[in-house]
């Protein structure tokens, strides 16, 4: 469904991604792992179209989306749950969800999708009239995920969705993501907690310094001694 070939992305004068390639099959759950500053968030941003690539190709559903604007990509079925959530703090929970359905094709299904969102995370229904800024970290993350779902995406990009979520809620969110995945949504997940990531995805890529350095199925990675060393630091 999604193929990236030799991607290079610049932030101003600095190259943030040098040579990144990855592939996500339809319906799969793929992880993007790596240290801070390695380029994971930039990759997701480039896929959505926020950062225009300096080099390389991004192909979605057989078509090139390299350099395509975010609004078009959202119409085409890509959605992002960004790092830091980026909610609209002074709009209500319901309004935040409505904004997720901003694109023309998504507007028709607004009400249905809101109901679905409330079904996934009932707490959002309770708080539907509250300002998003008053929600707790975990609730905000739930809202951010649902907002992304409002455009009925086929590809869901998640940037550290468990950050700032209290441990008790992490399982609930993880379960919800599993159900969403089971409904056929393809997922690309950026995550810092290695084992939590590998718990969820089947395949993962590791980025370091803007380059893909390792990739493989979950089991392969776990058994790779270099992998453990690098991330768990237990020699």
């Amino acid at each position, binding site marked *: 469904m999604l193929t990236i070939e030799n991607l290079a992305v610049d932030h101003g004068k600095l190259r943030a991604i040098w040579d990144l390639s990855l592939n996500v099959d339809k319906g799969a759950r793929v992880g993007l792992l790596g240290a801070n500053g390695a380029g994971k968030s930039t990759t997701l941003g480039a896929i959505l179209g926020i950062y225009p690539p300096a080099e390389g190709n991004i192909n979605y559903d057989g078509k090139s989306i390299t350099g395509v604007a975010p609004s078009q990509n959202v119409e085409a079925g890509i*959605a992002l749950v960004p790092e830091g959530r980026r909610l609209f703090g002074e709009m209500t929970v319901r309004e935040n969800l409505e904004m997720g359905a*901003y694109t023309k094709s998504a507007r028709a299904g607004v009400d249905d999708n809101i109901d679905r969102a409330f079904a996934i995370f009932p707490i959002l229904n309770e708080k539907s009239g509250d300002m998003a800024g008053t929600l707790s970290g975990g609730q905000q993350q739930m809202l951010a995920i649902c907002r992304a779902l409002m455009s009925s995406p086929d590809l869901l990009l998640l940037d550290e969705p468990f950050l700032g979520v209290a441990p008790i809620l992490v399982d609930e969110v993880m379960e919800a993501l599993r159900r969403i995945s089971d409904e056929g949504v393809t997922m690309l997940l950026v995550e810092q907690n290695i084992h939590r990531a590998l718990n969820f995805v089947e395949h993962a890529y590791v980025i370091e310094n803007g380059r893909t350095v390792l990739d493989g199925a979950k089991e392969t990675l776990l058994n790779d001694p270099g992998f453990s060393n690098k991330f768990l630091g237990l020699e």
Partner: protein
Amino acid sequence: MDASIIIQIALGGILIGGLYALVAFGLSLIYGVARILNFAHGTLLAVGGVAASGIFAATAWNPLFIMLLLIPVLGIFGYLFYDHLLQPLTKRNHFEYTVGSVLVTVGALLILSDVAAWIAGPAPRNIPLRFEAIEFGDVIVSTTQAWILGGIIVFTVALHLYIKKSWFGRAMRAVTQDHTGATICGVKADKVHALTFAFGSGIVAIAAVLYAMLFPVDPYIGFALTVKAFTIIILGGIGNLVGALIAGIFLGLAEGFTSFFWATQWAPAISIVLLLVILVIFPQGFGRRKST
């Protein structure tokens, strides 16, 4: 002190304050969304008011009709102004962006007022409608004033509802609160910036005609109005319409009472002093600024 005099002054203050608020609405939306201080904003009113007066003098058309003509004109002007002159600056570094937008908007201010003065003359003019007086005891109100006050209130409510309920209104609010978040939802941020400029400028057209019906306009009143509009935004909070209306009325009352109790020439200073005092106590203004 006669109560009726106080009421009379208060009414005048509320009226002009409401007009100030209208001007501020546009500036507030523009600033909230595009984060650009449009120094030429008030000059749009000055020029629009002069134009409206000129049209009225030549054709005696209903001012409402003139307003409906003026709105799209200013709206299109605002859109093109942003799209061609300001949007390209967003690609530059922060200092050049700030300097550039100041120079562009101040340059526009000077061009607009000077050209208007050249075409229509610098003398003040207005839309002189005969007024029928309604009397409440010793207080005299003209029907024009009453209609305008009513119009301002209705418009504010309508605008508030539009911004709250419409997709474009939501887009404006979203971009104001979190630029990246809005982009992720599929909002074309650049387009929203330009449309908001158009929208804000269109609102000024309404204020321009109403203002000209009550007070004299000349091409040079623009900058002072911009200062007042900015004071109102700071007081009322960026993007907060009801707050802006209240702040506007407060400013109008302050000016009215200063004029009466102290001296007329100090009235214009009120808004500036107020602005400076508020900025000192609340360096961020009352509105919460969301970082992009």
